[in-house]
């Protein structure tokens, strides 16, 4: 019998702790327990048999850390073979009459994935894939991914299991006292991601005892539509006479687990500190309990690495600003590979209160696949918000979905066969909430009835892929009312019909409605209000639009979605501020003189510097502002820093103020004419992930007009060489913080000397000094950012 059949109408029992039992048998700290599968097979089999005798249905192989990071391939093969044989042998030797299964146990790699660590996502997938393939080769019955405390690594492991086997996969995460994973995910976020990717059972193990884990388990039971598993520790560890003991007895443990089985847990076992006694007690306490039916929860949601966003309560705002359409400055940033600009748009929208960020980086002359992947990776490193991946290129979509840390919103599919044939398989594999446009080969139906009919066909087709309607959100398409007076009305009707007749959620790109009309915001606002009243679940919108935010906040207050009108009152405060501040602004504008911008930059007043610059642009040449105001201010602060009368934080605040002034100037100019000095290639070397120092250098160089090409951190020597040659850059700046990464810096210098002999190399970072710089063959050691600027000015001539 297959475990997936068996668990349909049985409570399934897992095994208990392994590590504590092996330590009792002489395993030393630091020793790799997986080797014992071969060297101490008898002991391992005894432990396994103890669990089968106690009533476990599933016993995990002793392969928690069996991966290609820790073992060479021959040894890994031998360990997994022996580990599976050990469980099989124990199953045969055991007197237990229950159904028995062998689970290939997979724990975390012990390394942190990029961007927080240095293990690349695909490398992690490959490491897990090696283990999975060996598990399949030697006949495991299922795969158990467990004790994962990072959602991204969990995704890598599950993806590897799905791509390399047909076996059922159980996934279990380790939660802290705060009810979250170490890297921040809530249970709802994990349920969304893991179910979306097709895990057969999901749940919780390790960290805490059953009582302390109960709140997390209850969250799983609330959200999950697949069986929930639970393997708590035997309480918390204490040290008595130099030995670790746990504070929950087998009887207490069994009682606590039984309480959760009654609430719906279908798969139960133990983790650290539990022994066959704990499992036997749990079996005795729970075998009489009728398994609780697993119900489909029909929750429409997306998730980020921290939290889930659920549709159907208050309307969801999706920020539309990460999109080059009609935005000159954004297009320029994309062409210049300026990811910082995209990140800034993301964070600014988050601060305006949107719930999800739409990410569209499609431009005819850029590599969308790599740009979308990079944008998604970088955005999820700086924002907690779930992302809506917005592309018509299926390759770009897959690249982005693969590395998305959660359950993404997918924008979009439509009723055309070709679209559904491409998008549905991706959604099935990676999970996701699909935005479905109600159009097909015949175009957009004029009537709401026509759009409803397309929606039905999309649902029918999705069903064939096993994608249920909760994972589809319809966009019934806002058409411009200036072209057809009934356009808005039909869209509002379609929203209502999709909601009432199909029971599905809807999302709209609201602002299309006003295309071609003056004061578009006015129309957008009223249309937004109409669609909300008609039952719209989400809107793709501009959160900087006061009109839209006004409609949203007032709608919540008027629809019983804002307790005590608190949200509205807080919003109203900001509105009052804007109105009150306006006359004051006017006044300062009149008196804005040349010294004021200089003063704002010197004092590090970011908003003020941008404001004054905007005002000055009306009457002053952009270059004059730079030459006469910004540069003298920066020089003054720079000299102060060199003379130690100004500290680093002040220097930075001034630089940021100058940058915000430059941004205003840049967006006012026809094209990116801001950089007037030579190209400067900048990177933190391979193996080093520290980039604050490098970013400070970048900021100052940009302020002084250099054309900075920031390659980021952990950059391979080859990549530095490639960029330097491509740009024929006269200067390269390299940064390293750690002694261990200086060899990488030396190697980079060496390769530059061969392929780009014209380039001067300036180095910096905590571990370097002038002698060290000489030794590795650099041209210049710069002790801080100002010195780098001074040197670059000399080279620029």
């Amino acid at each position, binding site marked *: 019998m297959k475990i997936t059949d068996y668990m349909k109408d049985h409570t399934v029992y897992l095994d208990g702790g392994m590590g504590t039992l092996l330590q009792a048998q002489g395993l030393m700290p630091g020793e790799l327990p997986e080797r014992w599968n071969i060297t101490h097979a008898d002991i391992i089999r005894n432990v396994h048999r103890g669990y089968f005798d106690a009533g476990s249905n599933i016993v995990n192989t002793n392969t928690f850390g069996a991966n290609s990071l820790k073992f060479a391939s021959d040894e890994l093969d031998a360990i997994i073979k022996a580990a599976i044989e050990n469980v099989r042998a124990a199953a045969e030797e055991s007197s237990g009459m229950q159904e028995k299964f062998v689970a290939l146990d997979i724990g975390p790699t012990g390394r942190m994935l990029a961007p927080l660590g240095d293990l690349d996502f695909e490398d992690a997938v490959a490491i897990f894939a090696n283990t999975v393939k060996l598990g399949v080769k030697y006949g495991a019955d299922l795969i158990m991914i467990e004790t994962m405390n990072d959602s991204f690594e969990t995704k890598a492991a599950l993806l590897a299991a799905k791509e390399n086997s047909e076996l059922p996969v159980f996934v279990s995460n380790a939660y802290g006292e705060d009810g979250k994973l170490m890297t921040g995910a809530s249970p709802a976020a994990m349920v969304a991601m893991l179910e979306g990717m097709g895990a057969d059972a999901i749940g919780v193990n390790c960290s805490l005892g059953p009582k302390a884990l109960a709140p997390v388990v209850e969250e799983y039971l609330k959200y999950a539509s697949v069986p929930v598993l639970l393997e708590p520790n035997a309480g918390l*560890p204490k040290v008595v006479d130099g030995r670790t003991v746990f504070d929950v007895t087998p009887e207490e443990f069994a009682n606590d687990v039984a309480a959760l089985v009654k609430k719906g847990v279908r798969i139960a076992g133990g983790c650290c500190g539990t022994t066959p006694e704990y499992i036997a007690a749990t079996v005795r306490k729970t075998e009489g309990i009728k398994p609780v039916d697993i119900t489909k929860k029909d929750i429409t949601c997306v998730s980020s690495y921290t939290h889930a966003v659920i549709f159907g309560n208050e309307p969801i705002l999706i920020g539309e600003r990460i999109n080059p359409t009609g935005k000159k400055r954004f297009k320029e940033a994309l062409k210049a590979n300026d990811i910082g600009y995209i990140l800034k748009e993301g964070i600014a929208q988050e601060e305006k209160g949107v719930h999800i960020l739409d990410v569209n980086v499609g431009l005819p002359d850029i590599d969308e696949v790599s740009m979308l992947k990079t944008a998604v990776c970088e955005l999820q490193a700086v924002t907690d918000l779930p992302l809506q991946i917005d592309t018509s290129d299926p390759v770009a979509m897959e690249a982005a979905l693969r590395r998305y840390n959660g359950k993404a919103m997918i924008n979009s599919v439509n009723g055309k066969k070709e679209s559904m044939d491409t998008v549905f398989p991706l959604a099935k594999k990676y999970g996701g909430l699909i935005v479905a446009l109600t159009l097909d080969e015949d175009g957009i139906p004029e009537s709401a009835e026509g759009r409803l009919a397309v929606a039905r066909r999309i649902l029918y087709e999705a069903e064939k892929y096993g994608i249920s309607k909760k994972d589809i959100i319809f966009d019934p398409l806002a058409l411009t009312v200036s072209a057809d007076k009934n356009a808005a009305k039909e869209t509002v009707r379609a929203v209502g019909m999709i909601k009432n007749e199909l029971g599905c959620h809807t999302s709209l790109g609201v602002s299309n409605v006003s295309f071609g009309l003056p004061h578009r915001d006015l129309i957008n606002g009223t249309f937004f209000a109409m669609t909300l009243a008609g039952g719209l679940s989400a809107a793709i919108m501009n959160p900087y639009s006061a009109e839209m935010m006004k409609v949203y906040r007032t709608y919540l207050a008027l629809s019983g979605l804002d307790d005590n009108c608190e949200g509205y009152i807080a919003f109203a405060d900001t509105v009052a501020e804007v109105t009150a501040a306006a006359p004051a602004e006017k006044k300062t504008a009149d008196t804005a003189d040349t010294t004021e911008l200089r003063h704002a930059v010197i004092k590090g007043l970011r908003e003020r510097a941008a404001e004054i610059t905007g005002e000055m642009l009306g009457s002053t040449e952009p270059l004059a502002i730079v030459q006469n105001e910004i540069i003298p201010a920066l020089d003054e602060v720079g000299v102060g820093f060199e003379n130690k009368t100004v500290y680093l934080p002040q220097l930075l605040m001034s630089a940021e103020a100058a940058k915000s002034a430059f941004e205003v100037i840049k967006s006012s100019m026809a094209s990116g004419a801001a950089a007037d000095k030579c190209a400067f290639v900048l990177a933190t070397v391979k193996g080093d992930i520290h980039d604050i120092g490098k970013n400070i250098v970048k900021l100052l160089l940009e302020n002084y007009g250099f054309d900075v090409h920031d390659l980021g951190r952990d950059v391979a020597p080859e990549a530095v060489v490639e960029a330097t040659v491509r740009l024929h850059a006269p200067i390269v700046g390299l940064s390293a913080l750690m002694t261990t990464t200086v060899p990488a810096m030396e190697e980079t210098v060496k390769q530059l000397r061969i392929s780009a002999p014209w380039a001067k190399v300036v180095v910096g970072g905590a571990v370097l000094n002038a002698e060290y710089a000489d030794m590795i063959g650099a041209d210049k050691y710069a002790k801080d950012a100002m010195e780098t600027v001074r040197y670059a000015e000399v080279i620029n001539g």
Partner: protein
Amino acid sequence: MSAVITKAYAPPDIGMGEILRYMGASGDLPQLVPVIDGCLAELSERLACKVCYTELSIIKEGDILDLGFVKVTSRALAKNLENCDRILLFAATVGIGIDRLIARWSDISPTKALIYQAIGAERIEALCDRFCHEMESEYGALRPRFSPGYGDLPLELQRDIFAYLDCPKRIGLTLNESLLMSPTKSVTAIVGILSDRRTKK
């Protein structure tokens, strides 16, 4: 050989003077204070202070030290551990939250990134101080803590410490190929136990 113990701590009190010192600033910087306060507010709830540690007996032969889990040659450590035949080996972290914040701001506001860097340095040192203080009440006087990379103590010792304490599983602390720790605001160290007092529970 004794067991490895894991403990969670509430974040220690903030040391504003230390934060300013780590930022390379000192004295009165009024325009910075609201920015730092804003950062501290954004950080609250995102710290997860954890320590795992164990007590070990050591054997010294000149500069060669048998730490009970690995042998290491270091004159500086030998000097630090004069008159000690036992040590505490610990790993501490304030969690990944601060790394997220540093990443969030590093490209957009280097000032904030610098401030978080400084706060992180202050937080992890404060956690280590607090842990060592607590250990002093249990073990009596302790030597100053000594970490891989100090003096001639090789950074490669990190690999052995991580394996021995099982840092990834116990406190979510990982080591990368360049021997950098992640979360970055973390410390591993050896602390010599000076007295013979043993008040272990």
